């Protein structure tokens, strides 16, 4: 099978999305007023520590002022990475074509 691995990846991704949708429906149905589902695990750990009575002794030097700006910077991070991957793979593919 030439594309066996691609098929496995596609099947797993679809299964992952399906599990998310089912889980999300269950969570939304039992959601208390004001609760926000699907928060970050990093934040959950921080909350757990703060519940133990710990006060962080330092704060981030700079915080994204809003969720939009945070997602902008995350998208920028992904875009930089995707650009590099695409550029290198494209170069390799192009050089292979011209040399063969």
């Amino acid at each position, binding site marked *: 099978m030439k594309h066996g691995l691609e098929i496995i990846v596609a099947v797993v991704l679809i299964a992952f999305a399906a599990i998310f949708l089912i889980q999300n429906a269950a969570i939304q149905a039992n959601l208390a007023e004001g609760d926000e589902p699907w928060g970050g695990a990093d934040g959950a750990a921080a909350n757990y520590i703060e519940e133990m009575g710990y006060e*962080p002794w330092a704060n*981030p030097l700079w915080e994204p002022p809003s969720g939009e700006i945070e997602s902008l910077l995350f998208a920028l991070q992904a875009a930089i990475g995707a650009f590099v*991957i695409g550029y290198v793979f494209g170069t390799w593919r192009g050089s292979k074509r011209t040399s063969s």
Partner: protein
Amino acid sequence: MHIMEGFLPSPWWQIWFIISAPFVIMGFYALRKLVRENREALPLLAVAGAFVFVLSSLKLPSVTGSCSHPTGTGLGAVLFGPFIASVLALIVLVYQALFLAHGGISTLGANLFSMGVAGPVVAYAIFIAGKKFGINEYVTIFFAAALANIVTYVVTSLQLALAFPAEAGGFMASFIAFGAIFAITQIPLAIIEGLVIALVFKYIIQLKPEILIRIGVITADRAAKLREGWA
């Protein structure tokens, strides 16, 4: 896996800086050697670094109802060894600490140890072991990348449990509590990360097997076989 800024008390944050530092120093030496001796491997290094960038920016929802990210360090560790992977992880952690308030400067040592040292070391060990026993490279890369991801989060749980032992039950109770927050969320994400990195490895084999042979990731013989199909 990001321990947030200020969330590790003294002396833990200093301890993790001291433990991580040698890996980064070794990484810079390894990088210098690579740049001098294997210039044609640099695009591959860029791909490995870019992978950490892309994967660690994706926050994926997982079965526990919370979101977490893949780490992407497995690819760099398998291709270039754990020390260079530490440097790649350092770049991403600094970006996220400075611009995204994800992680922090005081916790950089601890976060670097989990994501840039423990994960890559495990990935590299699995890949070497797989090579020794003649297991298919796609299988070993899947496990190397998936376990690098899980180990990263287990180590984060360990670091937090050491710094914050529970009043009742001590270190173990705390480790289980943090493990429940991090490690279980991580299992589905680790599977996806392992598969995606195996897929990228396939494309590298198809496009530039000679680099992999040159830096000693696989033998010419195996590369020829993998290009034909699964085996």
